[in-house]
């Protein structure tokens, strides 16, 4: 007779017939979370690895029951507390339904407590890669794309979550079912729950060029930090480089904390758009827009003002 045990190789509760464990099991050894040949994760078959990032790695997978393609992300964290927090927040994100927010279908936790996120699979390039390949975006197009992301960010903030790592690399340019180009916000690996008015500290994490001063100085993140990063992202998309690029990390942090937003003279940036981004990147969080909604409304008004006024001409 053969017995079944949980598949410790995958550690995800997937069942496969295995020989009974010996009475004196060998000492546990470090095992990759996925074995490339047996790619079953609790109802999903892993197909291929899409990428490795700072917070984990992402695989393309197929839901066996629904025959639907998904993305599965394994968070890279060794701290049980962090894992618990990630699971909680993944569950929060899963409640958000917004076209600009990647949809989370499921959260799986393995025997060791490591979380895996099962997400909507999106095809496309991230905006950083797009800019690297094709050059900076036209300012109207950049703002139009980011308006959707900001709308999604509003929804995220309404659920009490801060993204914590807004940058072009985490914004995917995808084509929806109607053939319309849309930007989708990815990677909530550094997200935090927040309470309005409270100070939240975290370890220094994020992408330096897009980090807000308060993230650098105090490790404090809040919705205003996401606002900063969104504005720096728009700037980077239009100009082709982040505003506070410096040769060394100390110099970069010093510039983020003290330097004025540089006006780009080598690309076209409307002065009113620059003024909006300047306010969204004020050094003191309270001096920025009161919330992302206000920023989005202001950017939308700017974009409307750029369109020619249609004339009634029967």
């Amino acid at each position, binding site marked *: 007779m053969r017995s079944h045990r949980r598949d410790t190789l995958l550690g995800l509760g997937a069942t496969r017939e295995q020989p009974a464990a010996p009475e004196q099991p060998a000492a546990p050894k470090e095992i990759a979370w996925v074995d490339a040949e047996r790619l079953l994760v609790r109802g999903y078959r892993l197909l291929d690895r899409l990428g490795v990032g700072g917070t984990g790695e992402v695989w393309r997978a197929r839901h066996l029951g629904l025959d639907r393609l998904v993305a599965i992300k394994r968070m890279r964290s060794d701290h049980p507390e962090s894992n618990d927090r990630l699971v909680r927040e993944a569950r929060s994100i899963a409640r958000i339904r917004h076209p600009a927010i990647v949809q989370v279908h499921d959260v799986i936790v393995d025997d060791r407590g490591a979380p895996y996120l099962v997400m909507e699979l999106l095809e496309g390039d991230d905006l950083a890669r797009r800019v690297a390949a094709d050059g900076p975006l036209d300012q109207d197009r950049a703002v139009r794309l980011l308006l959707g992301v900001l709308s999604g960010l509003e929804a995220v903030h309404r659920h009490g979550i801060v993204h914590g790592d807004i940058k072009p690399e985490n914004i995917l340019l995808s084509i929806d079912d109607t053939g319309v180009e849309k930007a989708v916000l990815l990677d909530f690996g550094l997200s935090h729950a927040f309470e309005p008015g409270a100070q939240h500290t975290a370890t220094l994490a994020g992408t330096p060029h897009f980090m807000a001063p308060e993230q650098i100085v105090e490790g404090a993140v809040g919705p205003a930090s996401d606002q900063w990063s969104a504005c720096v992202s728009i700037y980077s998309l239009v100009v082709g480089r982040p505003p506070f690029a410096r040769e060394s990390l100390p110099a970069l942090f010093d510039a983020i904390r003290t330097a*004025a937003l540089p*006006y780009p*003279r080598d690309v076209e940036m409307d*002065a*009113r758009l*620059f*003024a*909006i981004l300047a306010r969204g990147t004020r*050094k003191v969080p309270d001096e920025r827009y009161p919330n992302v909604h206000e920023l989005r409304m202001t950017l939308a008004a700017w974009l409307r003002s750029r369109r020619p006024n249609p004339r009634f001409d029967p």
Partner: protein
Amino acid sequence: MSMIPPPPTVSRTPPSRSYAAFDPATVDALDDAALDELPFGVVCLARDGLILRYNLAEGRLARLDPSTVVGRNFFTDVAPCTNTEEFHGRFRAFAEGSTGGASIRFSYVFDFRFGAQNVDVEIVRAVGAPRLYLLINRRQFLPERTGPEAREPAPRQSDLVADEADRGILRNRYAERILSTPVVLFELLANAFANHPTAHWPTIAHDWGLAAGRRLVIELETAGDDETPLAERPMRDVVEFVSDLLRDQGWGVVAFDLGESARGVLRLDVESSALVGRPTRHGRSCHLLAGMLEGVLNHLAQRRLHVEELSCASTTGRACQMIVVGESRRGVASRLAAEGRSFDEVVAALEAGRADDRTT
């Protein structure tokens, strides 16, 4: 230490900000770092008055942080005293092209809560771009105007960013940002300097000093009553002026010995330097001050010089001694200083090197 001398309580005339070597038509080509090096105010505006660029000198003289004012409207938010037909009207007409020429100039009075300033303004178009530059040259600092001629003064930094004190920003009564520094911080720095010297520490300290010296130049040019730029004044007057200002700012007494200037070197003796508290492992500790003096002397000489500390009061008990040489002799001077050579020995070696050069 504040680099800004206290504002005058009576009117005084700053030196003329002559930018003879500066071509206003090329200002748009300067990057932000280069704009910050200029000793006069530069503000770049969009046609509707939005501030796109704001240099360090203007920030210091208006006592506003450039990072706070970019993106705001110059005429309504930052300098409401300019929202007049006399200033804004001229700007608008020039921006719209109804005033011809590459630039226009006029005199004006800026109103601040800490005093008024007589200024010369030049408005320049950026070539091929829809933005304009204000080049602002301070002519005279005056007490605050309160009569009918006074216009709405510019906001203070604390008006633009409220509740500064709650965020740990302190200002003195002149609206200058200050730092209350505990003595223990200097103790820690001195310890770091004394006990953990690294191969790079002198270079880092020198570079910090150089950056501070470049900014000090702005203060030097705007302090005092002489209208003549420092570089055009007699050398002895200038070094006395610089020495006085350094003493007033707590850097100690810096004596300039010009006796060897004919041989292309200067000697500096520094007494009571704030940087000398205890002996260091490598026997010298005034790299920061040497860098700062280098920044000032570069400006005065209008060419690259190098200041090298030769001996330190912390180990000799006498004044710190420094040598000033041209940039081309920097390497030799640094090497000889590292070998512990005296001023006379270094001068002799430099002379010999020069003779060798002539021979070869």
